[in-house]
């Protein structure tokens, strides 16, 4: 597969390490009332769609960027690629 890196352009997916669903960015608040349940759902449950899937890839053999790739899990077509750090900030993550 070819991942169109937002900074480096098209790169072979072989250079990347796959993690999984991009919701792993949304780590729950450890002090929330139902933190235990939230962490369970966060770590263990997946939508696992047959179709568009937002997922995390690490450019391990490249610039060490974590990317959020939107890819169709049926056709493997890649629709968008973003820097995970930007996505994380837009999802309200900070320190």
């Amino acid at each position, binding site marked *: 597969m070819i991942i169109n890196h937002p*900074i480096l*352009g098209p790169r*072979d997916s*072989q*250079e990347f390490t796959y993690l999984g669903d991009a919701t792993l960015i949304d780590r729950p608040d450890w002090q929330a009332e139902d933190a235990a349940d939230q962490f369970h759902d966060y770590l263990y449950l997946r939508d696992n769609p047959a179709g568009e899937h937002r997922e995390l890839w690490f450019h391990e*053999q*490249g*610039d*060490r960027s974590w990317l959020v790739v939107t890819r169709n899990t049926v056709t493997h077509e890649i629709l968008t690629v973003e820097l995970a750090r930007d996505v994380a900030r837009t999802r309200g993550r900070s320190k």
Partner: protein
Amino acid sequence: MGKFDNHGLNAVSPLGGSEPQVDAFAGLLIREVTDRALASLSARQGGEDAVKSAAASYLGGALPEPASWNANGEFAAWWMGPDLWMVSAPHDSHELLAAELKDAVGEAGSVVEQTDGWCRFDMEGGRCFDVLERLCNADIRAGKPGDATRTSMEHLGVFLLCHEAGQKYSIVGPRSSAGSLHHALVGAAQSAI
């Protein structure tokens, strides 16, 4: 191989020799390079501009753009990642490059000595394309001087720096695997040439 005996310890090259290794083929030379000091420079949050200007004045030129490298006098630098660069200088005159660089950028940046984290082989000659296309997936034939590509060769992550398209490249890889990287380069050369 440089002024290493400035104290009681003698240096050895990544391949373990006291002199850099050279391998010659028809139309290709593979040279182990040991006379450069390296330091990584990363901008701290909010310090991106400060680092760039401080580095520019220390290096005598701007830090390179993504996926590229440049040289300014005795200095050279390549882009490693977002807000992260590798700076290189002659080892003889800059064995303490990291300290010098840190002084230059101060609080705006983080600097880490990288000199001995890497081994470097320069490949020169008309057969570079033929050999490199056996080693890495970079589109080298479409490449240009100043390209700095992180790629992998025979399972090893390396930086590939283009000096002159089709004629001269530097391959910078992990020092502990220098032997394996060297074997891969020589093997590819024997196979392709």
